[in-house]
């Protein structure tokens, strides 16, 4: 009954309209190199606050799924991934385009991305509810360690150095201490400004970091002359035969499992999943020599992998309140703005909304399937839009979007300053994800840490006696020291 209501809710005219708008916007954002799914969701988040939660989230879910799928379009047509998640699609996709099979490649991208999205939604349905039930057993100590676990996992997979990731993550934790203290309502760092009592607003900072920061970085690093991107959709063969589809099934099943697991790990997104899946499928393939030369299997695996991450990322986001990637970090912020706290409690307090979210995820994939298969001819035209035009559009959307959240000028200024900070992080090779995660997890971490200590009269042993804490702490420590152990192992020092 819950599911029927959830699906009926998605097909309400307003909700479905915003879902379609999200899919179309996501397709534009994903297809254009330089605009990422994270940036798209960040920029459109303020608009979603002016809608009913169901309609607002339908739009964001549409953008998220569609942008990841559409990233493969430019990867296939012009050998430039539209989003980082589509890097592996360039390996075989562009080769197929060179061989005059771009129409087939684009349809493989659409069909397998949708398949990845649907299969990972199934995993979300299967695992989110038991995981949330399990998380209900968590006490303050477990929650505090879980927050630390989320942060360390994101740092360990963020690509940059562990120290840099940790530094940025802890800066996020520190900045979130501005405002009223959650246990004693004491004013911290508010400079006697009532606007700061609620703390720094997370959304404008996130828009600045991922929107303005990214645009400033592109302005700084772009070649003066923009090379025109010539693309054509060619080929008489447009779809795989059933026999070919069956042949590709084992590799794709493996890629889906790998990607859902990677999606669960905080910070590990579609880029990591698709590269690992592509590499693993090549190792298992009977024709590894075809990989990178226009292999249909290689392309399908990379396409299914990047969208299959979404279900995994949303599982931890909904069940534990820990984001699987940067986009789900933004979605957590949006849920909080709507007065809902992701984690096991949301399955009790806002259960119908959880069903609605999952239903939206499934319906969004079907909308992408129809949209993707019917619009492939227009992408070459979209790819002709100049980067400079996009820069101006994104800058304006960031500024007006930040203002629209609360009609507050402080939000606009903090967004602009966060943009400059985001640019500095990019240039200095510091990851931005841990900063946002630090800001998000700060309250969960601090309040539960202090609550746990109050239960034990200040005794820290509580963190080392609970089995859940011990396991989470062990994984956290291992994830942080593993890169240096691996380095030493490679050098033969151990």
């Amino acid at each position, binding site marked *: 009954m819950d599911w029927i209501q959830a699906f009926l809710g998605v097909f309400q005219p307003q909700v479905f309209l915003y879902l379609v708008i999200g899919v179309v916007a996501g397709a534009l954002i994903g297809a254009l190199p330089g605009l990422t799914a994270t940036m798209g969701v960040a920029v459109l988040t303020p*608009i979603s606050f*002016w809608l009913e939660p169901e309609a607002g989230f339908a739009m964001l879910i549409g953008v998220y799924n569609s942008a990841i799928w559409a990233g493969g379009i430019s990867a296939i047509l012009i050998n430039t991934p539209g989003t980082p998640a589509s890097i592996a699609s360039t390996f075989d996709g562009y080769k197929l385009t060179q061989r005059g099979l771009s129409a087939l490649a684009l349809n493989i991208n659409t069909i397998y991305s949708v398949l990845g999205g649907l299969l990972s939604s199934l995993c979300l349905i299967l695992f989110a509810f038991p995981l949330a039930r399990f998380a209900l057993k968590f006490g303050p100590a477990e929650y505090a360690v879980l927050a630390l676990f989320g942060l360390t996992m994101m740092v360990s997979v963020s690509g940059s*150095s562990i*120290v*840099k990731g*940790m*530094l940025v993550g*802890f*800066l996020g*934790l*520190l900045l979130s*201490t501005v405002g009223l*203290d959650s*246990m*004693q309502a*004491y004013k*911290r*760092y508010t400079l006697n400004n009532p606007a700061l009592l609620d703390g720094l607003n997370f959304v404008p900072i996130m828009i600045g970091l991922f929107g*303005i920061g990214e645009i*400033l970085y592109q*302005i*700084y*690093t*772009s*070649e*003066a002359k923009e090379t025109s991107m010539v693309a054509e959709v060619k080929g008489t063969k447009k779809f795989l035969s059933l026999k070919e589809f069956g042949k590709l099934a084992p590799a794709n099943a493996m890629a889906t499992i790998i990607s859902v697991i990677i999606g669960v790990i905080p910070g590990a997104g579609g880029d990591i999943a698709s590269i690992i899946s592509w590499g693993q499928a090549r190792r298992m393939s009977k024709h590894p020599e075809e990989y990178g030369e226009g292999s249909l299997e290689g392309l399908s695996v990379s396409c299914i992998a990047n969208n299959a991450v979404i279900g995994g990322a949303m599982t931890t986001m909904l069940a534990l309140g820990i984001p699987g990637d940067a986009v789900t970090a933004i979605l957590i912020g949006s849920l909080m703005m709507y007065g809902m706290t992701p984690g096991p409690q949301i399955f009790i307090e806002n259960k119908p909304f959880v069903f609605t979210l999952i239903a939206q995820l499934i319906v969004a994939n079907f909308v992408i399937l129809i949209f993707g298969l019917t619009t492939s001819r227009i992408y070459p035209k979209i790819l002709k839009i*100049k980067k*400079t*035009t996009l*820069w*101006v*559009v994104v*800058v*304006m*959307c960031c*500024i*007006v979007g930040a*203002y*629209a959240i609360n*009609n507050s*000028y402080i939000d*606009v*200024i903090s*967004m*602009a*300053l966060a*943009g*400059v900070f985001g640019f*500095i992080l990019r240039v*200095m*090779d510091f990851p931005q994800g841990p900063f946002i995660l630090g800001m998000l997890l700060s309250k969960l971490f*601090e309040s539960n*840490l*202090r609550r746990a*200590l*109050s239960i*034990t*009269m*200040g*005794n820290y042993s509580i963190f080392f006696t609970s089995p859940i804490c011990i396991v989470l702490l062990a994984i956290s420590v291992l994830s942080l020291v593993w890169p240096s152990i691996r380095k030493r192992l490679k050098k033969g020092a151990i």
Partner: protein
Amino acid sequence: MSKAGLLFVGACTAVALIFMIPAFKFPGGTTDGTPGPGYFPILVSCVILLLCAVLFFQYLKDNKKYFQQNEVQKKNLSKLLITAGAIILYTVLFMFIPFIPLTIVFMVFLNWLFGRTWRFNIIFSVIFTGAIYYVFNNLLHVML
């Protein structure tokens, strides 16, 4: 080590100290062992200071130049600084000047900076400003 790396580590150290020093004056914990409001900022600041020290020695040990500009970046530096300055100026003027004229001027300026033709520049700036105003002001009821 590069000046930029040193500056960044220095800035992070300063931020940690700015948060840590006042936190010592916050009310203390309760007698039953519940930590006070200063506990968490002090704890996090200490970790940041430790990480800054590690990063400082890492930079020193590597002795390589971080943040070294290539030719493209050197060429784009002035454009970057002007854009960043224009965005900050726009966000400040946003409080005082009506949205439509300010935004048209801002967009014309950015398009000019990015080398677009005047024809495109003016048509795009006017239409896009109008579209944003319509969507936010009329559809979403944001007071622009």
